[in-house]
């Protein structure tokens, strides 16, 4: 036995059944997806005994992760049965912030929520109720459905994520550009994976705005990149301010100043067009607006991009030639694409690059995915229940029609924040906060959001642990189940995977049960299902709400899926634009006005937005605010992922915390020496808006003027009540970020391209930022 690859799996031990007995354990083959959060949905084996998960193992027979697991899943039993988990519904008895609660029954909790919803609906209209979720929890369609069908409100939003700066800028421009999204093709849509004869390894991957090995964003198992490098000789071009492991293995590492990627990518486009390296056939047949794009790109010679980004001009040209010469090439894009004010134009430039190089939807290229069976696994689930009048009230739509028409329609977080603060265009009276902890994680200007959330008269939090957000603002807290405690499914993108309930935990209920039971009390007509299993069968079968053609819907039931474990639909093909699968009229082409990839975007043009890629300097930077930069002389990038944690989760899990005990800020060794600190020392990271403290890690690959800080930190081992509030503002990098500064479409925000100063924490200057925020009205 010399292998851990699929064909070497011992079938006596690992079975294709969905459940079997192994000694004292019942083994269940299913898939893991939240809680805790993740962007993957890996296949696992649960070993249960007496209704409790005792062990977990990666399922080696799954083509998805092939037995592999990350440390968060490996240690998930410790998370599942952590003593601090929420066990019962709770009602606040003290003041907000005091962390005083009484246990109530589910019926009492639902009655309280329904009473408030009815009062608000009558007095202020359903739109006064805002539902929100974070990222990476299995509530992508559940919370929206409850909002649209249960509350009757169009205001479903991502927990105060400024500029909706995660994924939505890319999906939205993808929708306008070619009617679809793309993901790097690592054979993940083929059941035989790399062994499928149709699959071709990419020659180059252009990796922009993410470290996929750690982040696994967009339903993408990051280590697939290692697979194709090892097995297919795939080479890399990496744009990153820091030399990540992938960057160290790259042929071309382009060390961009944070927030300047768009200048580099447009300059690469310019080189490809200028040197005639593009795919003439694809451009002629399948692209619209090439001449206009070529004119635009002329404004971005490599020398200009070099001046803006700090990347050598010749390196930009070489990378462009390498990508254009790759057959196929593909792009692995991620969150940091979205986290600049020019997130949309950067995404547009990357789409344009793939299109003119002929890499769209070819094997090993930038494949066009949709969810298996066209299941509405999206923020639009249930939106069809709203009237046009109510849809028109969605916050953000007046400024940006994209929010109503985008691929993943949501209200805009910045606009919701303004509405809470000003009562305009109408007041917000209730927040339904399902699996998001905004002040610890995704809310820019966290202190401002903390104050806003506290000012809303009635709030409900659904989560697995008591969070700083819940203590700060919740009136009712509902305990939700972990992945092992729910009947659900995963479909981002392909294949469809079962999530089977194998355990219970006190009175925790699954998100499906919660929305169903609450929905039945609010709007029984739109929640006709008796059980979560019936609800899941409806969901699995509810395809073709948004697409007329591909993929075809299914009549599979949830119990059937449970037995299949993983279901690969048979309607997958490459070059779907040739087959007429993408357009609702069944004609060949892309699902856009022109039927082509719109290098010149006709929708944007009609709405008065720039129809082509452009670069915009971060609003605060050495270039745009040179005087401010004298006082705050470092470029601050935030949000690099860690192996141990998914955003703000898992800080209370002992084995994970042991591996990564403190919040870390990376400094170049010269910079550390300049301010007189060593690895492990605590420093203040501060700018015009606020400050936080983190520990120094030395990173010699950074530019000396770049500072790289972690996000998502709170300290569940400390006092939960205010003023400490689990120390949520002590190391919170979002004390420094800003709300309401976005691109013209309201998409894209500068989370990862700020400015700051840094200095050592001393006895004299040490203090509690959490106390400053919660007691002194600071930040």
């Amino acid at each position: 036995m010399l292998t851990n690859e699929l064909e070497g799996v011992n079938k006596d031990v690992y079975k294709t059944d969905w459940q079997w007995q192994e000694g004292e354990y019942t083994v269940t083959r299913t898939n893991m997806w939240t809680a805790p959060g993740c962007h993957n949905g890996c296949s696992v084996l649960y070993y249960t005994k007496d209704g409790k998960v005792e062990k977990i193992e990666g399922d080696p027979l799954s083509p998805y992760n092939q037995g592999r697991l990350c440390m968060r899943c490996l240690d998930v039993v410790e998370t599942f049965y952590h003593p601090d988990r929420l066990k019962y519904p709770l009602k606040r008895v003290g003041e907000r912030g005091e962390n005083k609660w009484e246990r109530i029954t589910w019926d009492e909790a639902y009655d309280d929520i329904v009473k408030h919803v009815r009062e608000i609906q009558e007095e202020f209209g359903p739109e006064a109720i805002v539902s929100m979720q974070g990222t990476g929890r299995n509530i992508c369609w559940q919370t929206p459905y409850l909002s649209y069908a249960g509350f009757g409100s169009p205001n479903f939003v991502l927990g105060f994520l400024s500029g909706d700066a995660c994924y939505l800028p890319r999906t939205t421009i993808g929708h306008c550009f070619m009617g679809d999204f793309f993901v790097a093709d690592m054979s993940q849509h083929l059941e035989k994976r790399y062994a499928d004869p149709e699959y071709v390894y990419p020659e180059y991957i252009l990796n922009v705005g993410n470290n996929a090995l750690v982040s696994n964003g967009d339903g993408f198992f990051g280590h697939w990149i290692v697979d194709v490098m090892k097995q297919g000789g795939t080479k890399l071009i990496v744009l990153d301010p820091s030399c990540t492991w992938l960057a160290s293995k790259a042929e071309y590492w382009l060390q961009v100043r944070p927030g300047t990627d768009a200048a580099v990518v447009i300059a690469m486009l310019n080189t490809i067009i200028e040197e005639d390296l593009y795919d003439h056939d694809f451009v002629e047949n399948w692209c619209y607006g090439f001449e206009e794009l070529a004119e635009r790109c002329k404004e971005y010679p490599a020398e200009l991009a070099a001046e803006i980004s700090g990347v050598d001009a010749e390196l930009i040209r070489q990378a462009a030639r390498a990508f254009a010469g790759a057959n196929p090439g593909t792009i692995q894009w991620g969150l940091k694409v979205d986290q600049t004010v020019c997130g949309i134009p950067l995404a547009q430039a990357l789409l344009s690059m793939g299109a003119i190089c002929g890499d769209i939807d070819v094997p090993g290229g930038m494949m066009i995915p949709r969810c298996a069976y066209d299941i509405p696994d999206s923020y639009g689930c249930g939106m069809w229940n709203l009237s046009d009048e109510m849809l028109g009230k969605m916050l953000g739509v007046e400024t940006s029609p994209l929010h109503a028409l985008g691929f993943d329609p949501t209200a805009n977080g910045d606009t919701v924040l303004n509405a809470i603060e000003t009562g305009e265009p109408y007041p917000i009276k209730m927040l339904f906060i399902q699996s998001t902890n905004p002040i610890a994680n995704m809310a820019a200007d966290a202190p401002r959001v903390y104050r806003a959330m506290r000012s809303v008269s009635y709030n409900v939090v659904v989560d697995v642990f008591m969070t700083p957000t819940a203590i700060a603002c919740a009136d009712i807290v509902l305990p939700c189940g972990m992945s092992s405690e729910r009947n659900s499914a995963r479909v981002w993108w392909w294949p469809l995977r079962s999530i089977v309930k194998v355990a219970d935990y006190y009175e925790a209920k699954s998100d499906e049960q919660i929305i169903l039971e609450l929905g039945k009390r609010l709007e029984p007509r739109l929640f006709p299902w008796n059980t979560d299993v019936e609800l899941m069968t409806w969901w699995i079968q509810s395809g073709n709400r948004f697409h007329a053609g591909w993929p075809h819907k299914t009549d599979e039931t949830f119990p059937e899926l449970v037995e299949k474990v993983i279901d690969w639909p048979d309607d997958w093909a490459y070059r779907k634009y040739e087959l007429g699968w993408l357009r609702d009229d069944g004609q060949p082409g892309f699902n856009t006005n022109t039927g082509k990839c719109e290098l010149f975007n006709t929708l944007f043009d009609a709405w008065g937005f720039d129809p082509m890629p452009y670069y915009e300097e971060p609003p605060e930077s050495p270039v745009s605010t040179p005087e401010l930069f004298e006082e705050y002389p470092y470029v601050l990038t935030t949000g690099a992922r860690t192996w141990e944690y998914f955003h703000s989760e898992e800080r209370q899990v002992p084995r994970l915390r042991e591996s990564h005990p403190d919040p870390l800020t990376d400094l170049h060794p010269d910079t550390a020496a300049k301010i007189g600190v060593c690895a492990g020392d605590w420093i203040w990271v501060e700018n015009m808006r606020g400050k936080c403290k983190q520990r120094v890690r030395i990173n010699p690959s950074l530019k000396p003027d770049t500072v790289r800080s972690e996000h998502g930190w709170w300290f569940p081992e400390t006092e939960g009540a205010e003023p400490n509030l689990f120390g949520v503002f002590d190391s919170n990098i979002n004390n420094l970020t800003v709300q309401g500064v976005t691109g013209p479409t309201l998409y894209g925000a500068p989370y990862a391209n700020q400015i700051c100063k840094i200095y050592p924490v001393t006895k004299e200057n040490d203090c509690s930022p959490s106390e400053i925020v919660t007691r002194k009205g600071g930040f």
Partner: protein
Amino acid sequence: MAEKYGLFIDYQWCTGCHSCEMACKVEHGWKAGEANGVILFEDGPRMMANGKYEYNNLPVFTSQCDLCADRTAMGKLPTCVHHCQAACMKYGPVSELAKLAEATPRSWVYVPEQ
């Protein structure tokens, strides 16, 4: 004498994901703060003489590593090998692993005490 088994690490692909460490800890029931059967040694990014950065990550096995005797007895792989995200570890007879190492640049073979 029974054939001696060991582990082979193709460490140029080790991304430093710590899955081996956590798999080991969980499998053997060792808690936070307790010694483990494998420890990931990480170096990088480090600038090399050619001007390029390098990461060298290496799982190092302690005397507590029993090559997952319970698992291998029932026909499973050691849990670190099974869960390695980069799939850069292999379990097998040392003699075979040594041949593999000979053909694999920047790799090594771990031979346990027993």
